[in-house]
């Protein structure tokens, strides 16, 4: 509109035209309609400023509303099992979009005739299956349909927010080194864009391993640098010789034999029952149970990436 108005008077005095442009811009700025944005296309770099995807402890279930079965499953897990040849390239489940280390590369898939939206595609990464968020109302597969690592996802607009629901995905490790989601789980995403910031809220529900929904958020920034998407194909290699020498070996811990179960408690002074998660632990009132049991550990003296309080 501004260009059109100025063009009409292009033969006028240049100074006056600049003044007009400045006036119109001044008028428009405070009055600009405040609408949310709905275009999600682009490469979004995660801020990674929470502990969503990392922990220095093998047994760190803090903040996860696990069921008793979920805790037992987590404590049986040996991260070294991922070094088995057949597991090295298995994908993480959908919540990895929030807990993983990679950017989100989002594109639209259009109907070839009408050009209207068929779906949103979130590109896969080395250990994450791609996600196609179908927007065309196609039916969800039968509950008996095969499950994939990425599952089946459909979405809809709720106002300016894209809401997507994923089902039909395989059991997998929901936080590296930590707990699991089962093949009966459901993942709901909310995509809220505010300028160049994209907030993704993920709600994982699982009748097997969770007692309550496990809800996480991650914030991403739009980038124009394609090098921020370092896709690497997974190639199995020999990681642990003992697994190759004995292919029948399935690494795990039997009940009560998890050797790292006290690691976080010893280093952070956080009671073991809190370290092992559960629905009660995610609410503020749980702090009252901790207050008389917790003493802050000594100051951190060797501060580097991953440095922990010293004993």
């Amino acid at each position, binding site marked *: 509109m501004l260009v059109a108005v100025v063009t009409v*008077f292009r033969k*006028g005095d240049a100074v*006056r035209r600049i003044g*007009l442009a400045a006036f119109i811009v001044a008028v428009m700025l*405070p009055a*600009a*309609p*405040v*609408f*949310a944005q*709905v275009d999600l296309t682009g490469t979004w770099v995660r801020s990674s*400023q*929470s*502990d*969503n995807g990392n922990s220095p402890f093998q047994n760190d279930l803090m*903040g*996860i509303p696990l069921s008793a079965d979920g805790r037992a499953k987590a404590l049986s897990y040996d991260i070294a099992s991922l070094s088995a040849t057949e597991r090295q390239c298995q994908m993480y489940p959908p919540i990895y979009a929030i807990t993983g280390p990679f950017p989100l590369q989002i594109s639209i898939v*259009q109907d070839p005739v*009408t*050009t209207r*939206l*068929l779906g949103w595609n979130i590109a896969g990464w080395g250990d994450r299956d791609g996600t196609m968020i179908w*927007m*065309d*109302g*196609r039916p969800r597969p039968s509950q008996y349909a095969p499950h994939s690592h990425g599952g089946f996802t459909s979405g*809809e*607009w*709720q*106002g*300016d*927010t894209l809401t997507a629901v994923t089902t039909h995905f395989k059991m997998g490790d929901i936080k590296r080194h930590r707990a699991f989601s089962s093949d009966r789980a459901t993942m709901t995403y*909310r995509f*809220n864009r*505010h300028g160049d*910031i994209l*907030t993704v*809220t993920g*709600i994982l529900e699982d009748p097997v391993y969770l007692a309550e929904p496990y*809800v*996480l*958020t991650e*914030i991403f*920034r739009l980038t124009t640098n394609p090098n921020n998407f370092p896709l690497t194909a997974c190639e199995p290699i020999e990681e642990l010789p003992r697994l190759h020498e004995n292919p029948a070996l399935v690494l795990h811990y039997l009940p009560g034999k998890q050797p790292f179960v006290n690691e*976080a408690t010893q280093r*952070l002074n*956080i009671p073991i029952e*809190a370290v092992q998660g559960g629905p009660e*632990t995610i*609410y*503020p*009132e749980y*702090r009252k149970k901790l207050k008389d049991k*917790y003493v*802050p550990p000594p*100051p*951190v003296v060797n*501060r580097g990436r*991953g440095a922990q*309080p010293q004993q």
Partner: protein
Amino acid sequence: MSRAPIPIAAIAGLIALGLTGRVDAQRGGGQRGGGQPAPPAPRAAAPIDLTGYWVSIVTQDWRWRMVTPAKGDFQGFQLTPEAVKIADAWDPAKDEAAGEQCRSYGAPGLMSVPGRLHITWQDDNTLKIETDAGTQTRLFHFGDYTTPANTPRTWQGVSLAQWQMPRGNVPLVFRPADRTAGDAPPVRPGGGSLRVVTNNLRPGYLRKNGIPYGQNVVLTEHWDLYKRPNGEEWLTITQQIEDPENLRTAKLIAPLFKKEANGAKWDPTPCSSRW
């Protein structure tokens, strides 16, 4: 040639008149000239209802939020050398002695403190957010609020709020494609969010163990509501904390809250510099 002045003024005036109407909902009350009815006040124009009781859900950064972490544990922050010095000198007893035990309850850190929110409208232009943890109150001013001169810096500072209104519909290219006539999923009404910018803050802590922010910090927030089909309501608060004196990059976090039916679990607790 002298033809420009009148058309320019007329067109510019039309543009001004045509556009200002779009933000009327952000301006509280008041009868406009020309006998037009007053636009709805921010309270009436709210695209989402944030009022009620909300409980924080601590699924992220648990070991830094639910307990007081060790002095010097700065994980998750990229601090400037000056900020490291301040944090290394953290002394909760000193804060208590100075009457500054609310340092970790200032606006930039408050939404990450485990607790409950009670959100009400103080008046048609002011949304009030109370917390039981630290018994703090944030006031979100809509409309043409201007900070009075010489307003002292406080833990909660001055917050200017603005609704972000939902579109009538998403652009055509982003609408779902019809599979067959009439069976495309609808674009459900709803949406919209609250944008809040807070400054004029008193220096405080982003984490209980003394990670500092300074008085020039600017907190920008987006409050997004999600009503689920099962009746649950979730609130995601996207926070961008900019403080170049102490943070080498802006801090980006998004604390979560879940709506509660009532205030039965509301538990006012005074500020503590140690717990």
